[in-house]
């Protein structure tokens, strides 16, 4: 009974915690500019994420190692340091974007500009982490994030052409504006295959004290939860096709995005969008801040747990305190979170091989996984994901130059 409840909660949190400013922005830009044509990128990103998250959970449940400390142990400090620098830069930019997303949501609700909210939002996120427990962060924010289901309601209410939706799930080339098409596709994949999600999930497995008996549950949460999350992203794209594309609106600012649900849900669409973004970005900001702190603590062998009091894992708490403080600075000076989002998604894609390649080695190491090592199918999938990550890394910067 306890496990069924945990499974239900796990599924709910996967769905409620899936969307964040990157996935929403890139899906809206895709729908507004290219119709249903880029649905395949969300599908591909979600499939990759399902497998990587499942492996992250399995590795931690069986070996009691997170991905980060296993990477450090298996590949040594120089490689870990290299990954740490890349992940810190990328995660920092994503954190700026998420905190900015909360500020922008508050801006459209109150009319007070997001730079004025930056300090308040950062302190609120920090306080939640300082005072809260892991389950509060994992479940609380994600439960609130269920308001993002309103994107699905809005998309369905606008009566999309389901044949075109199904057609969009198959990869096609753009007839014109190929560079922008490629750039948006890369950004969607960068937003979907977020390394911080894997680090957070892997650390959460340890925080929740999972063991081998949780392997089936891990598979269901990763498979079903993340797939439903992917459907949310697709709903955003579909809503953008129907609400923004016919009017010729290309999403460059949050104010434009805020109109997404007003045609489908005239009474509540505006408020639902603002709250959906507020909670989605809050959940993501908490997860990213924790992921960065987990990364450093696990990599350097410090004491770490969100459930410990700050006096018992001071260096862990110092990392998230510092990173939240630093992330607030560009926002106070009015740096546009949407621009940071676009840049961070492409940068995530550019650095993707670094966190992904270790999976192939770790998931085949009998010392860590014993009989739960990857089989031929999982290894084939990881190999394909690694190939995709290298392609993304190579093409992301040229595409940013010509299509970004």
């Amino acid at each position: 009974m306890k496990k069924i409840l945990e499974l239900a909660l796990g599924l709910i949190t996967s769905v409620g915690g899936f969307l964040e400013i990157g996935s929403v922005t890139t899906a809206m830009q895709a729908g507004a500019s290219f119709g249903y044509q880029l649905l395949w990128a969300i599908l591909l990103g979600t499939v990759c994420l399902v497998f990587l998250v499942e492996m992250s959970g399995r590795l931690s449940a069986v070996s009691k190692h997170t991905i980060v400390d296993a990477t450090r142990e298996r590949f040594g400090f120089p490689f870990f340091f290299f990954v740490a620098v890349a992940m810190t830069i990328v995660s920092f930019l994503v954190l700026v974007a998420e905190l900015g997303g909360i500020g922008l949501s508050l801006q459209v609700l109150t009319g007070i500009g997001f730079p004025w909210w930056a300090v308040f939002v950062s302190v609120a996120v920090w306080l939640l982490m300082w005072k809260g427990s892991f389950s509060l962060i994992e479940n609380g924010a994600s439960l609130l994030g269920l308001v993002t289901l309103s994107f699905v309601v809005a998309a369905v209410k606008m009566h999309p052409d389901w044949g075109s939706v199904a057609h969009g799930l198959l990869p096609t080339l753009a007839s014109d504006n190929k560079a922008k098409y490629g750039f948006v596709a890369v950004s969607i994949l960068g937003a979907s295959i977020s390394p911080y999600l894997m680090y957070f999930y892997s650390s959460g497995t340890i925080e929740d004290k999972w063991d081998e008996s949780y392997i089936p549950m891990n598979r269901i949460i990763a498979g079903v939860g993340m797939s439903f999350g992917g459907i949310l992203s697709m709903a955003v794209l579909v809503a953008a096709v129907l609400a923004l594309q016919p009017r010729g609106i290309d999403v460059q600012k949050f104010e434009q995005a805020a109109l997404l649900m007003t045609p489908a849900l005239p009474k509540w669409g505006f408020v639902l969008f603002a709250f959906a973004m507020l909670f989605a970005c809050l959940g993501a900001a908490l997860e990213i801040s924790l992921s960065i702190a987990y990364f450093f603590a696990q990599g350097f062998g410090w004491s770490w747990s969100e459930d410990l009091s700050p006096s018992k894992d001071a260096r862990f708490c110092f990392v998230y305190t510092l990173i939240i403080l630093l992330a607030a600075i560009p926002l106070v000076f009015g740096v546009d979170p949407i621009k940071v989002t676009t840049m961070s998604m492409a940068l995530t894609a550019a650095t993707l091989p670094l966190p992904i390649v270790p999976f192939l080695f770790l998931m085949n190491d009998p010392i860590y996984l014993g009989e739960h090592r990857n089989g031929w199918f999982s290894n084939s999938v990881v190999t394909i994901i690694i190939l995709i990550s290298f392609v993304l890394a190579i093409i992301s910067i040229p595409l940013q130059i010509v299509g970004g």
Partner: protein
Amino acid sequence: MQLKALLAIPVLFLWACKQPTPAEQLDSALSWLATAGMAGDAWLRHTTPDRYTRETLELSRKTLEQIRGDLLKAPPSKVDAASLDGALTRSRRRIAQMAKLVEAKDSPAFATQLDSLRSDEKIVKQLDDSANAGQ
């Protein structure tokens, strides 16, 4: 050496944020005209707050002003620059007027301005089509 290469990635990304071409600027102008129109529609249907509508209209106006300045310096080829300038100038004035009418809660006058804005949007769209046809 590897670390330096990694640190160079964000610098490359910053450098990669290129200036938009005149054709892209024209598309952007159309997008902001449509944004002002959609925000106006939403306000007339009482689905968005006054403050948000005013600020979105103001943002549209400012962005159009900036785009107009850029397009004057480098207009897209095969486009009648005077017609484009006229349409964008009128649009900016109408959007500014619409923001004032939101404050005054004058829906009938707002609807009239919105209709006129739609006419200007059509003119800009035709100019954009002619620019695209010329490419």
